[in-house]
């Protein structure tokens, strides 16, 4: 049969050649993935990677510029090593980013599924609630939550996470409505499959992948919002080596010691860009509809 013969497998190239072809085709994705991996590594092994403890003060050098020596990226106004603080800061950034996205995506999945599946008044009520959440920028929302919850890393995770439920709910609902109308859902119903099994086997798998893709992209957004909270002084409390906080501290000296704000700022910018590129790559990779054959 012609249509069968067409798909017979070609001679499989060697594994190394495969990897090389992949790297060549996805240069930016690979670079970004390496960068993200480096941040994760640095965060996980901060005590071993960082030359100093994050709050250790060097009484001999305040606001020292980046130079070859003990303080490669310089020190801040308290004589704390910027490289070490930035490395420890990656812990908070990644923790807050991942935690907030997990809360946002989890909550969004529940709300979106409920709205998309139940429909009617429930959907109307949920989506108007989401609309009102979306009417405020996430940062403002997070500020509101922080003012209720109080300060601290866990509070920031919760506040940013809740602020993200809105956008996640909206996409999940849209995907649910789209998947629900697919013939395979009707086919399952004709087969006699019950509603819960249809949701579990046919609808959730088809909304969870786009959700995961959106989550990887939103991690960077969550980090940005949490840094924003710290920057305006209501997120994480000093002397925690949080990037937003470090940028805020360095702000007063930016004209004559730009590295104090610049180093954590650059660390933040590079991580955000790398995460976005990885997010896009993940979408291409795991969406079978976007994936190219061969």
């Amino acid at each position, binding site marked *: 049969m012609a249509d*069968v013969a067409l798909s017979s497998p070609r001679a499989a190239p060697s594994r190394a050649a495969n990897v090389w072809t992949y790297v060549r085709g996805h240069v930016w994705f690979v670079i970004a993935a390496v960068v993200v991996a480096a941040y994760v590594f640095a965060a996980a092994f901060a005590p071993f990677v960082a030359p100093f403890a994050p709050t250790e003060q060097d009484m001999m050098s305040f606001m020292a510029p980046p130079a070859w020596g003990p303080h490669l990226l310089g020190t801040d106004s308290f004589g704390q090593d910027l490289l070490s603080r930035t490395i420890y800061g990656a812990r908070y950034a990644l923790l807050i980013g991942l935690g907030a996205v997990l809360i946002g995506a989890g909550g969004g999945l529940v709300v979106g599924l409920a709205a998309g599946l139940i429909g009617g008044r429930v959907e109307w009520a949920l989506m108007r609630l989401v609309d009102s959440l979306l009417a405020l920028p996430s940062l403002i929302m997070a500020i509101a939550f922080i003012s209720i919850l109080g300060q601290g890393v866990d509070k920031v995770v919760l506040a940013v996470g809740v602020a993200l439920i809105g956008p996640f709910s909206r996409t999940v609902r849209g995907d649910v409505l789209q998947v629900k109308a697919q*013939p395979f859902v009707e*086919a399952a119903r004709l*087969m*006699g499959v019950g509603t819960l099994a249809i949701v579990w086997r046919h609808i959730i*798998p088809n909304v969870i992948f786009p959700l995961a893709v959106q989550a990887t992209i939103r991690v960077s957004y969550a980090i940005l919002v949490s840094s924003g909270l710290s920057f305006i002084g209501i997120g994480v409390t000093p002397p925690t080596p949080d990037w937003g906080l470090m940028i805020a501290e360095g702000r007063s000296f930016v004209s004559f010691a730009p590295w104090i704000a610049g180093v954590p700022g650059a660390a933040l910018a590079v991580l955000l860009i790398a995460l976005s590129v990885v997010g896009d790559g993940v979408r291409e990779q795991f969406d079978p*509809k976007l994936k190219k054959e061969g």
Partner: protein
Amino acid sequence: MSMPSELFRLLDVEKAYDVGRKGGLFASGPRRRLAALDGVRLSLKAGESVAIVGESGSGKTTLLRVLLGLTSPSDGRALYREKDITLLQGEDRDRFCREVAMIYQDARGSLNPRMSILDLVAEPLDHHGLCKPSERRDRVAALLSRVGLPPEMMERYTSALSGGQVRRVAIARALASSPAVLVADEAVSGLDVSTQAQLLKLLRDLQREMGVSLLFITHDLGVAAYLCERIAVMYLGRIVETGLTKDVLSAPAHPYTRALLNAAPKFFEPIAEPLGGEIPSPIDLPPGCRFAGRCPEARDDCRASDPELVAGAPNREFACLHPLIGEPAFA
């Protein structure tokens, strides 16, 4: 066995939709009804193959939805093994789900893209508890080879398959629960002719070897002639002619059937003068025969009285006051 030989029976099935008043929100006219199906009588016996043909808008899809129990008729009864389809419960409903398998026009859309071919074909087996977990792979392999696909394909996803392969998977899945009836909606349209021919041959072989009934919805008379012993021609929510496919297509009684036949292109012949106009709106039909406005044979009485589907010849029914063969229905 006291089992009735008829699987499906439609008794004067009517499906009407309320489409509101003419002129929109503030109109005051009478409410209008759209009759998607209007007095459809049809039966499908075990092992029989019936083609339903008609233009788009003729009610084929509504008929299909009624047969599958997705919509209930607004009047008349739709029966499966002598029980109302939309009222089936418990054991009867399980049996209906197991015995009636659907092959969709959009084969790719009817298969969950996140499930492997193995899981897709095995889903009816799993759902109806038709095989032990240890036999699952073998059963799926057997089904795949039955439709001409290599068993290695099990691990793949539909996104990696060609259009013809996807249709074969859909057929394998439909066969999994050993159904009594295959309902196919344009199952071979939109494919290149060689693939179409392979699938048609496959369906015909399956129908003959497994004794499964086939209800094939199509707009292609050639496909209907190849696959089905009986044919029902639909026009505007009604069956206007039915009988053995070879009789109907060799000597159509209803002018609409003849027009359909003439509209199919033939080798080396100019296409006959096509039927004028389009299928009229099924809202607020004028009295008389619903085909009268487009019928080249229409006479005065056609515009006055609406012909019923009656036996006009052995094994043959048509709804026409002035049929092209035999005795007129109302002589």
